[in-house]
């Protein structure tokens, strides 16, 4: 029964995908969307039942299907594991997934390939479920690459535009760089543990009978972290995420904000027992997370594309999560993942609503004053913005604050960085809010005429998510964390719980003040001074560096892409030519010798006889006289 249910959970979206792929074209109107939504909702329902079962029984559900791969020292099975961590993830993946599917029914209504959209979206959910449900690293890897694929398909959904296609390709390839790291990590773990099952590895570690020196584990952890970097858009592999905004907005909300990008965090949390053995790697993770958070936030300060701002904000928030992971505070990272999923999904969907109303315009410089026409969108957006800015009692406050608190305890510099990033977050989020919803409309008259609130199918998910963003912090209130207890079985080393002392309250205060500083700055600039960001060419100085994202893409192009192409040209024009030249040279040599042979054959009997005689002489000399 459990097996069947779990398979239903897994396969429901896949069935949705199949139906949409093969029959989607024939389904009329909203039917593909409804089908897709139902499929994911089914998964959600099953997840819910499992969730309730496991949270009460505290016994994970293990499902072993069949043998998949055979390697020298171990076998890999197609097997699934529904424990606390995976169910938690499944809850919000399928939950938010359902909402976003619902949203998309309306949002993608006019697209001619809507059935494909839902097919891909369903496929994504399927792979995400696989990723989360797998009971060993290779199953996770299937999902891992699968979601990458869906991300590729959905970013490039509007395939007529080659910029979008480039973005999709970039996302896939950068993910694959991380995947290579992941694979190498898997290999090393395979050598060390002779298995890729989480439980086996965990048992091996906890029994303390490791044969390999721990640096092997460290390298494996580092490699896995590289994989996580790729998927979760951390330095240095983060540049694909802002570009990925080329996809339809629901995609950005689901894949590039709420679920897929958190796969890295899931993986590290899943293998927390492993990372605990590698403190150096944890340090690296923390530093990378913090730096990413700061850099992404700083770039976000000055972007004008509404989705780009949100994208950098996502990168920045993911950085914070990695900071938490690096500090060993896995529950807190998970907590932030969940709250972030709520408010960031809400923000993206809200921005989608705005873009929908603006007929595809994404530049904030041409928006403004929308709160009057789009009330629901505005309110939900405001709630989420407050949540991300870290104001109590919104969910973001609790999760972010816990991260900063942990950082303060463990590593002060990182706390500073994290706090600065938070202030910046507050600033650019409110900048976004002000530019979009306040003041007067700056778009064309044509656009103004058509401004309207989005239909219910769009606003309903917004409202639900806004509520979740508002109250989501409740799952792990300071001092009384349901989440900590719930996750305790899957986290090997419990981080010591901070008692809420004066330091903690003071830190909270600092955080709140920081958020207000950011909001205040934004208010001063965009409400008081009514300034609107200028044209691209007017930007100068450091702002220009920021506006151009620290030129990272250009640097990557110059350092990696260009050299590869140059190498390709070199191979093509030099080495290939040289090798075939050599081979042909042998043929030419034979031909030249043949021509020489021809000239020797000059037709004169005298010469022939002379050669004959010379031949006789040399043979006789050789045999009889040369001694």
């Amino acid at each position, binding site marked *: 029964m459990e097996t069947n249910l779990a398979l239903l959970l897994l396969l429901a979206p896949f069935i949705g995908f199949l139906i949409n792929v093969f029959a989607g074209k024939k389904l009329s109107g909203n039917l593909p969307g409804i089908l897709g939504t139902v499929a994911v909702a089914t998964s959600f329902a099953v997840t819910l039942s499992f969730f309730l079962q496991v949270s009460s029984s505290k016994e994970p559900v293990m499902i072993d299907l069949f043998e998949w791969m055979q390697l020298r020292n171990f076998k890999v099975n197609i097997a699934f594991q529904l424990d606390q961590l995976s169910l938690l993830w499944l809850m919000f993946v399928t939950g938010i997934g359902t909402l976003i599917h619902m949203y998309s029914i309306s949002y993608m209504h006019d697209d001619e390939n809507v059935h494909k959209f839902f097919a891909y979206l369903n496929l994504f959910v399927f792979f995400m479920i696989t990723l989360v449900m797998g009971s060993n690293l290779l199953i996770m890897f299937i999902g891992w690459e699968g979601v990458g694929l869906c991300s590729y398909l959905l970013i490039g959904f509007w395939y007529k535009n080659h910029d979008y296609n480039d973005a999709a390709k970039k996302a896939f390839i950068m993910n694959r760089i991380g995947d290579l790291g992941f694979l190498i990590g898997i290999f090393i773990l395979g050598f060390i543990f002779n298995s890729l099952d989480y439980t086996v590895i965990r048992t091996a570690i906890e029994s303390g009978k490791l044969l390999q020196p721990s640096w092997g584990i460290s390298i494996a952890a580092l490699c896995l972290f590289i994989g996580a970097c790729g998927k979760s858009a951390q330095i240095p592999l983060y540049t694909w995420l802002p570009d990925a905004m080329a996809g339809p907005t629901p995609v950005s909300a689901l894949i590039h904000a709420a679920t897929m990008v958190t796969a890295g965090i899931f993986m590290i949390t899943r293998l927390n027992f492993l990372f605990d053995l590698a403190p150096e790697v944890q340090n690296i993770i923390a530093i990378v997370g913090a730096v990413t958070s700061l850099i992404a936030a700083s770039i976000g300060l000055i972007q004008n594309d509404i989705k780009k701002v949100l994208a950098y904000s996502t990168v920045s928030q993911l950085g914070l999560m990695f900071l938490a992971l690096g500090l060993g505070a896995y529950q807190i990272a998970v907590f932030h993942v969940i709250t972030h999923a709520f408010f960031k999904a809400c923000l993206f969907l809200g921005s989608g609503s705005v873009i929908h109303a603006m007929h595809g315009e994404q530049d904030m410089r041409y928006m403004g004053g929308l709160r009057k026409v789009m009330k629901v969108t505005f309110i939900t957006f405001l709630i989420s913005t407050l949540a991300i800015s870290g104001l109590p009692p919104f969910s973001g406050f609790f999760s972010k604050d816990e991260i900063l608190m942990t950082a303060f305890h463990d590593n002060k510099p990182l706390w500073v960085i994290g706090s600065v990033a938070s202030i910046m977050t507050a600033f650019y989020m409110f900048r976004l809010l002000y530019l979009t919803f306040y003041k007067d409309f700056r778009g064309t008259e044509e656009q103004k005429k058509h401004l309207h609130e989005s239909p219910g199918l769009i606003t309903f998910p917004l409202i639900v998510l806004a509520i979740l963003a508002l109250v989501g912090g409740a799952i792990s209130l300071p001092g009384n964390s349901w989440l900590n207890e719930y996750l305790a079985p899957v986290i090997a080393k419990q981080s010591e719980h901070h008692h809420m002392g004066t330091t903690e309250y003071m830190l909270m205060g600092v955080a709140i003040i920081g958020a207000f500083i950011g909001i205040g700055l934004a208010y001063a600039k965009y409400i008081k001074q009514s300034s609107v960001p200028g044209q691209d060419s007017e930007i100068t100085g450091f702002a220009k560096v920021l506006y151009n994202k620290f030129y990272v893409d250009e640097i990557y192009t110059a350092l990696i892409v260009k050299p590869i192409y140059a190498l390709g040209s070199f191979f093509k024009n030099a080495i290939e030519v040289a090798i075939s030249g050599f081979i042909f040279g042998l043929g030419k040599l034979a031909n030249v010798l043949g021509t020489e042979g021809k000239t020797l054959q000059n037709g004169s009997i*005298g010469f022939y006889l*002379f050669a004959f*005689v*010379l031949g*006789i*002489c040399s043979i*006789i*000399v050789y045999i*009889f*006289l040369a001694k």
Partner: protein
Amino acid sequence: MLTVFYILSAITLGTAFLTILSKNPIHSAIYLVLCFFSIAGHYLLFNAQFLAIVHIIVYSGAIMILMLFTIMLMNLNKEDEQNKSVLTRFAAVIALGLVAFVLLATFIKAQPVIEGYQVSGQDYQSIKVLGKVLLNEYMVPFEFASVLLLVSMIGAVLLSKKEHINS
């Protein structure tokens, strides 16, 4: 006897050279006949009279007549051979020297020590003996030679037969 041998040898080699060096083919032919006669002299020295006679009949009498006949037929009795290039002559001389040197050196090297040549006193070259050997022991090659001659005959006919298509 040695003197006779040397004189004969000198004549043989000399006429052979003259055969080659004379510009007029008729002269060459006549020198060659002389050369053949001197070789017949050698045969006589060996006491091989029958062979000497056959030699003269076949070579001087048949082969050389055939050649002379051809020369006459083609009206070649004039010195119309074009001047050969120096290179050709030089090459020929070099080849002569080389071959002569190499072969002689080889034979000198390969020369077996001849310890007192013994004569058995047996008859081995009278016509009677030769006839017996030729027609008993060498009967098959003797018959086979007829095939050879037949071939050359057919060949000569084939090459010079006038074609008249009759079919």
